[in-house]
């Protein structure tokens, strides 16, 4: 039985990896930091305006490492959530629309395990996507601007190696944040047979959450927002690292996962699959 689950999981991951639109989406994610790096290179002498541009942009010309951070910062608000929304939309609603869901249900595994495999696929994407963005940013940045010691937010300098470790930790943190979004996405995906509907709904939810987070009059709501702590990844760039600062973000992510995975099960386990 467990052997069957492993095969099922492997086939699901293979399906995700081979899907053309997923490959294209990943390429688009990887392209953004490259575009940023090239644009900054062409507009080179911008050192006269050190505080211009979004976060980390001003440091790019000094150290290619910051292309990765700038890329993550730029993509966090829309590109990365859309990528997860695509995966989540395909997970259940996509199968239902293609009419393949009922064949999946003939595989002798329970619906809980089916959902678990589907969520594992989303998790795979959630952790892979930030890594791809960071890697593409790091490589293009190093080629165009070179590396070197990294300035932390506290103004101190750390070696490139420990900088890479911190970048990896940032990717894992963002992966956890996106995993929570994926749990919500899996639930939305069980509600409909239109994968595009699920994708759009989840993307809108993310944007709405960011917008609500910007409104000071709604500060009582802010602790409950999914996206509220996503930008806390900067805590890993302080010296010393402020691991406590990551607590709220990880707790929020955990809370969303704990609520929405059972919700997805409650909906999916009792659903009549007709297509």
């Amino acid at each position: 039985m467990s052997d069957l689950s492993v095969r099922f999981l492997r086939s699901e991951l293979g399906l995700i990896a081979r899907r053309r639109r997923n490959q294209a989406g990943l390429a688009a994610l990887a392209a953004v930091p490259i575009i940023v790096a090239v644009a900054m290179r062409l507009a080179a002498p911008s050192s006269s305006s050190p505080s211009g541009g979004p976060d980390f942009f001003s440091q790019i010309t000094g150290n290619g490492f910051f292309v990765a951070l700038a890329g993550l910062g730029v993509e966090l608000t829309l590109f990365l959530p859309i990528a997860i929304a695509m995966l989540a939309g395909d997970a259940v609603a996509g199968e239902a629309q293609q009419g393949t869901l009922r064949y999946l249900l003939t595989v002798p595994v329970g619906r809980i395990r089916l959902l678990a495999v589907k969520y594992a696929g989303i998790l795979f994407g959630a952790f892979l996507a930030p890594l791809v963005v960071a890697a593409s940013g790091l490589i293009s940045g190093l080629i165009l601007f070179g590396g070197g010691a990294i300035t932390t937010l506290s103004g101190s300098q750390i070696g490139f190696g420990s900088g890479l470790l911190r970048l990896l930790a940032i990717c894992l943190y963002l992966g956890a944040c996106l995993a929570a979004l994926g749990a919500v996405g899996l639930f939305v995906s069980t509600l409909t047979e239109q994968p595009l509907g699920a994708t759009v709904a989840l993307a809108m939810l993310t944007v709405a959450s960011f917008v609500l987070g910007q409104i000071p009059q709604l500060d009582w709501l802010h602790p409950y927002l999914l996206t509220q702590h996503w930008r806390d990844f900067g805590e890993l760039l302080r010296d010393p690292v402020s691991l406590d600062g990551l607590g709220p973000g990880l707790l929020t992510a955990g809370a969303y996962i704990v609520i929405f995975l059972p919700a997805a099960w409650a909906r999916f386990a009792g659903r009549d699959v007709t297509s």
Partner: protein
Amino acid sequence: MSVFTSRPALRWLVPAAAAVVVVGGGAAAGTIAASADPTLPDITAAQLLTDVQNAKVDGMSGTVVQTADLGLPALPGLSGGEGGADLMNLVAGSNTARVWYAGEDKARVALQSTLGETDVIRNGQDVWIWRSAQNEAGHFALPADKGSRTPEALPSGVPSTPADAADAALKAVDATTAVTTTGAAKVAGRDAYELVLTPRDTASLVGQVRLAIDGEKKVPLGVDVYAKGADDPAVRIAFQQVSFDVPDAEQFTFNPPPGAKVTESGAKDVEKAAEEHEKAAEQAAKEAPEGSKVVGQGWTSVFVAKVPVNDQVTAVTETLPKVSGTWGSGRLLSSALFSALLTDDGRVLVGAVAPEKLYEVAGK
């Protein structure tokens, strides 16, 4: 499983229960901390103040969180950009700072904002100010003799021991303030005494000021200011996490990163600036605008001053509600803790009192 198969709707109880546990769990954690029983032996206010003055810690570090909920109207032009600490956060919202302290001449405060940080670091005579958003570092050296505060010979009549000073201080405030202590506070997971200051004058908007003092180390851990009748503090500054280990020396070394803009000001510049500041202060005191005075005393005193009215001021005040009465007319800014009145004839009145009291003073 069988229940869920026969009655599918029951499945929804699982996510619902998870939601209740998650949301309720957070709320419950707060309640437990708030209703902790007194664990510390009783102590008088005078004894507590004496202990605070005698307290000596070799080092400490922690995270300080400041929150404010003054019930102010949103003012345009006060919210800053991303990456910098937001001015609006000081009056509505929260700020987080990490602090390190190792003796008189080693201290560091890091004010944190999303993807940004402002550091003030003192190491011996060197003081650095670092702003990550601007990629800017400022450095100046404290003059050697003035850097460390040495206790000077006290003139006679000034209390010479901490215990005397505590008694004198308590006597001085007794007419206006009731001072009590409790042993029931918990700050950053540590048992703490609370020094509770309650204004005797009921006209004050301030209900209570509660100063939390660590039960063991006798250092202040936090301050809560309550508006009258409020259950939650209007302003709160407290350690969220604290450690009394001496921090590593490396926390206090700062070398400006390459590429950063560094501004140097020598010890002489600092002294000069200080002197100029003193002169300016004297000048200002002499030239204090007419009508700048304090009316009343204690918690209900009202500060009255004349202000120049220019377009910038008007732009902000125009959004405030208009008020008028027998005293004239003006704009009113009222919050949970204080009120401010800007009259049309260019006076500003500020006090920790209800607007009615300001009208009364304005009419005099």
